[in-house]
């Protein structure tokens, strides 16, 4: 089998997830041995105008122009990977949806804001069909490599649908709630091997919430550890604001 042609693209994002690939060190050679990168703005100047097999898309969709562009990418590729939180769940760009669009535009572009078209932030799967998700801000490279293997083997990749706590316990970290800090591990999808907590940080919920979170259960947690509700809500919305688009569409149905 010839190596699949892979192209990287980015939309509204910090490009940090692509940087994760560029910085992955020795295992990058193994990855490059398995794929043929034809476009990757961050590391090469070549552009590719033909079809390719795999599109790796970072960033959220925030303008009408981006909607057109992602639809064209979808048409040109066989497999589309949404890569990084901005792409998979909207990520921090979702915070834009808390404000009226005009207000946002004026804030950013000043009095000529009318020349700059914008739409509410959407995750890539909220615009086009996506075949694989690599969650994370930034992506967790071992998971990215696992997804890549699944792509190469033509197999589905199932993002774990249990909490980050599961992996965190297996790593035997001291629960950060014991340290008096609030963490979104209990409601966030695992798959990152509790990377942040292993390194002394907390979980910010960048991988999106588990599909069936116990939203009322938070009450007991808040009581046990004495954390203010709005703090938890703000933390939750930092990455997960775009959930509301799915929720309102579900209601319409």
């Amino acid at each position: 089998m010839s190596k699949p042609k892979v192209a990287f693209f980015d939309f509204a994002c910090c490009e940090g997830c692509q940087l994760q690939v560029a910085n992955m060190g020795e295992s990058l050679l193994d990855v490059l041995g398995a794929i043929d990168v034809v476009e990757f703005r961050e590391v090469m100047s070549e552009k590719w105008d033909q079809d390719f097999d795999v599109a790796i898309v970072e960033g959220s969709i925030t303008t009408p122009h981006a909607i057109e562009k992602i639809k064209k990418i979808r048409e040109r590729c066989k497999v589309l990977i949404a890569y990084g939180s901005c792409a998979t769940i909207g990520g921090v760009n979702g915070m834009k949806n808390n404000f009226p669009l005009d207000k946002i535009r004026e804030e950013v572009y000043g009095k000529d804001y009318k020349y700059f078209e914008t739409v509410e932030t959407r995750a890539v799967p909220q615009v086009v069909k996506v075949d694989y998700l690599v969650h994370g801000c930034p992506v967790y490279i071992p998971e990215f490599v696992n997804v890549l293997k699944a792509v190469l083997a033509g197999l589905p990749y199932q993002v774990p649908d249990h909490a980050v706590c599961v992996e965190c316990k297996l790593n035997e970290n001291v629960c950060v709630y014991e340290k008096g800090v609030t963490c979104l591990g209990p409601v966030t999808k695992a798959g990152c091997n509790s990377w942040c907590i292993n390194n002394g940080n907390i979980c910010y919920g960048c991988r999106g919430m588990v599909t069936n979170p116990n939203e009322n259960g938070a009450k007991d947690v808040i009581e046990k550890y004495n954390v203010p509700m709005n703090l938890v809500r703000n933390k939750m919305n930092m990455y997960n604001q775009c959930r509301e688009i799915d929720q309102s569409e579900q209601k319409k149905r």
Partner: protein
Amino acid sequence: MKKLTLKDSEYEIKKGKILRVRKMTAIETFFEIALPGGESLDHEPGQFVEVSLFGVGEAPISVTSSPTKRGSFELAVRNVGKVTGALHKLKEGDEVGIRGPFGKGFPVRIFEGNDLLCVAGGLGIVPLRSLINYVIDNRRDFGKVEILLGCKTPKDMLFNEEVDEWNKRLDVKLNCTVDKADPDWKGNVGLITSLIPGINLKPERTFAVVVGPPIMYKFVIKELLKKEIPERHILVSLERHMKCGLGKCGHCQINNFYCCQDGPVFSYDKIKNIPEAL
């Protein structure tokens, strides 16, 4: 940390060579598989194997052939997940890993000398076929045999040719029904439960074997009990996620039973008070 090679791991697979692949429906495929040197799988009707593809994983699959078939065994696989999806891409000559057979099959010894009612809904015909062909191959050991088959539409029907063969036999009574007919369908229309009042078997010497989707059991069993078939004469085969096959991993647990070891075949009297069973 030392890494020792094990000689007797329960996770060791046998190589199974695919002799024949046949597409059955849009989502079901039939495989005939041989173990090295024509070794017998040595299964009972109703048992299952763990089919393994390295890099993909393992999935529990019912054996659909009768143990009376020698030299190879057969699986009928619905494409519903990662492993079964990958299996559907295989061709003749490819190899898969096989562990097993596992679990308790249909108690054929107890059936001997008695009448048999086989009730299969949808994919339920797959494990039941192993029993039906076993009974047909040992026909003199059993009394009357009645088969009730049901599925959603005529095009979902599996093993059509074989079902026709069964139907032609004078010593087997067979009835089919579909939930929704098409213009060519000449059989019954309606749920499989509608066929049960019409059976003509002596309840005290009848064993009823029921396999189908989870929703089916309650209704079929209710009808069978109306026919006064004793509870311990009603056998069901339950579907759970039998991951290890060894009664350890916990995925297939039904209250205090491990489906992979204590089942998948259970008699109704054993599970009627087990809330997670039906």
